[in-house]
């Protein structure tokens, strides 16, 4: 199937007077790992719940696998959900939890047993079936919730911040497991998260939401490299913003004078939102380089003073105040072997390239 598995058209959602979703349109492809990313309160959960059928839409339509979901209640939709709190039934064993949905379908006992065992094996919990569900750790509950949903072979699996309750190590491990699992089962996953790293590393495509609207829907690399506006650029990763005056806009390129850095000619594709008086220059920290020794050279160079040094072990982040700019830019450097870490107040030469500057509105 190359058809979109889910088609959202013109979805509005009101809670009383408060509008939580504004005309949301999106198509989610069959088999992809799709993420809804956005700051708290932007409507991610609301959108997911309208897909699951827990919330009625105020306007617009949800279509799943080509069928309208108008008037189809949650318990008859071909979606299943993994809840943020896991929602493991505390009064049932692990196996009973996983069997829950199958029993609702009145599947014969024997078949249920086999299916449950297979599902538990899939999430790495083979043999845990008889455990009381409250005796499981956070990560294990997470897996039970996954197994419980996957065993029903839904067309779409919905995950509402499933990893936010886990500690960092466990979260990273589960991120990688989830990704592998999704590839293995081939089911469409829709993941809600407010953690951009999570979204970037896991997803095929991401919809970034702000205040009830989708700001940009694209692949991780595209989102990071070509954010359509300042809002997206700021939300995904770190972006340094510098004043810019565009002096010429002919021939598919723009001649710019960037505060603190200098002149550059920037191709139109690096100005995804077009150019006008409100535009600023955006540069990612890793696109700037501290030229630490005499030998290192760069296409273009600027200069400034180190304001702050953040040592992360593998990386060092510098806040460098470029000459002629009053707020510092952040520059990230990988602490490869032999590279020395600068200190506060040191003078720094900053290398950059025109290809790494975006013009954003």
């Amino acid at each position, binding site marked *: 199937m190359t058809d979109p598995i889910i088609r959202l058209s013109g979805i509005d959602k009101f809670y009383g007077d408060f509008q939580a979703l504004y005309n949301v349109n999106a198509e989610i492809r069959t088999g992809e790992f799709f993420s809804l990313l956005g700051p708290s309160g932007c409507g991610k959960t609301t959108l997911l719940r309208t897909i*699951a059928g*827990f919330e009625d839409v105020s306007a617009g339509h949800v279509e799943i696998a080509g069928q309208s979901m108008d008037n189809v*209640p*949650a*318990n*008859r939709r071909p*979606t*299943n*959900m993994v*809840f*943020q*709190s896991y*929602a493991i*039934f*505390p*009064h049932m064993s692990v196996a009973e939890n996983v069997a*829950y*949905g199958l029993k*609702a*379908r009145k599947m014969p006992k024997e078949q249920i047993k086999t299916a449950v065992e297979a599902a538990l094996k899939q999430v790495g919990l083979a043999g845990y079936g008889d455990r*009381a*569900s*409250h*005796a499981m750790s956070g990560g294990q509950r997470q897996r039970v919730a996954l197994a*419980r*949903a996957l065993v*029903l072979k839904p067309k779409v699996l919905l995950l509402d911040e499933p990893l936010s309750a886990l500690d960092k190590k466990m979260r990273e491990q589960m991120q990688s497991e989830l990704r592998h699992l999704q590839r293995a089962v081939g089911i469409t996953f829709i993941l809600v998260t407010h953690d951009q790293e999570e979204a970037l590393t896991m997803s095929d495509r991401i919809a970034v939401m702000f205040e009830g609207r989708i700001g940009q829907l694209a692949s991780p690399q595209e989102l990071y490299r070509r954010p359509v506006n300042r809002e997206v650029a700021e939300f995904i990763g770190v972006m340094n913003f510098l004043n810019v005056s565009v002096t010429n806009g002919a021939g598919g390129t723009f001649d710019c004078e960037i505060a603190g850095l200098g002149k550059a000619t920037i191709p139109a594709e690096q100005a995804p939102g077009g150019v006008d008086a409100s535009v600023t220059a955006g540069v990612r920290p890793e696109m700037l380089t501290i030229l630490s020794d005499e030998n290192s050279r760069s296409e273009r160079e600027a200069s400034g003073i180190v304001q702050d040094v953040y040592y992360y072990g593998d990386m060092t982040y510098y806040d460098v105040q470029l000459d002629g700019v009053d707020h510092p830019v952040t520059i990230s450097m990988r602490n490869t072997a032999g590279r020395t870490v600068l200190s506060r107040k040191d003078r720094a030469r900053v290398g950059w390239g025109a290809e790494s500057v975006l013009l954003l509105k």
Partner: protein
Amino acid sequence: MSGFAKWRRSEEASGWLLVSPTLVYSILLLAAPLAMVIALSFWTQDYLDLDKTFTLKNYIEAWSEPIYQTLMARSLKISAFVTALTILLAFPVAYYVSFYVPQKRKPLWIFLITIPFWTSYLMRIFLWKVILGYNGVVNGSLLGLGVIEQPLSFILYNQNAVVVTLAHAWVPFAILPIFVALEKIDRSLLEAAEDLGDGPLRRFIRVTLPLAMPGVVAATVIVFIPTIGDYVTPRLVGGPNGLMISNMIELQFKKANNAPLGAALALSAMFLVSVVSLVFVWMNRKYLVGQK
């Protein structure tokens, strides 16, 4: 002595120190009476003289006399009915308040449920008689509506009346724990059940009810045990066949001058209700573990 000084600052010592006033109070005013009742149950009384030689006579009498057996069985039965009715009445209300009432108005509803109990219990019982009586509110309305031609007589001065009156008296005590249990249910569990394919009814049976069981069990124990001890209600609305074991206990302690037998009956009754309650709790143990 530094060992002692250290102990005094320890958690152990602080805990004991803090609990001791309440504990001493309970020991003075509860342990002593309890011990006395237990001792009394092994003595005998003939008219006014107390014979303090140890005997099991009272217990033998309490457990073998048909009248006590009947009263005991009847009391257990009435208490069980009261408990069942109370829970049946209370559950939907607790459910309504927990699931349908907006968060802000919940305390108000809890008020609403407790307010009628700020009138004297005796007056309430008395008024129940007015309600259930021959030309009382119920019969009056039913007659007026033409539903019945003769006033119903099975609603007062029998066990039904005892059950209704007691259920009324205890219903707030059942609503509160069930309400608390329902409040504690993570709403996403209910959504999960729906998401996994259950309709409202199956969801209720498979998830809501089991998770509310701790509240139901608490309510059951809270209602069942003290109901056995009530002698005022049966006497006032029970009629000839509505008397309970507590009336007999009262009688032994008062008119019949046989406090030892009364004590034995009381302890036997307490033993029975405790056993029944424990069995009930045990039967529901699977719902009580693992939930906080």
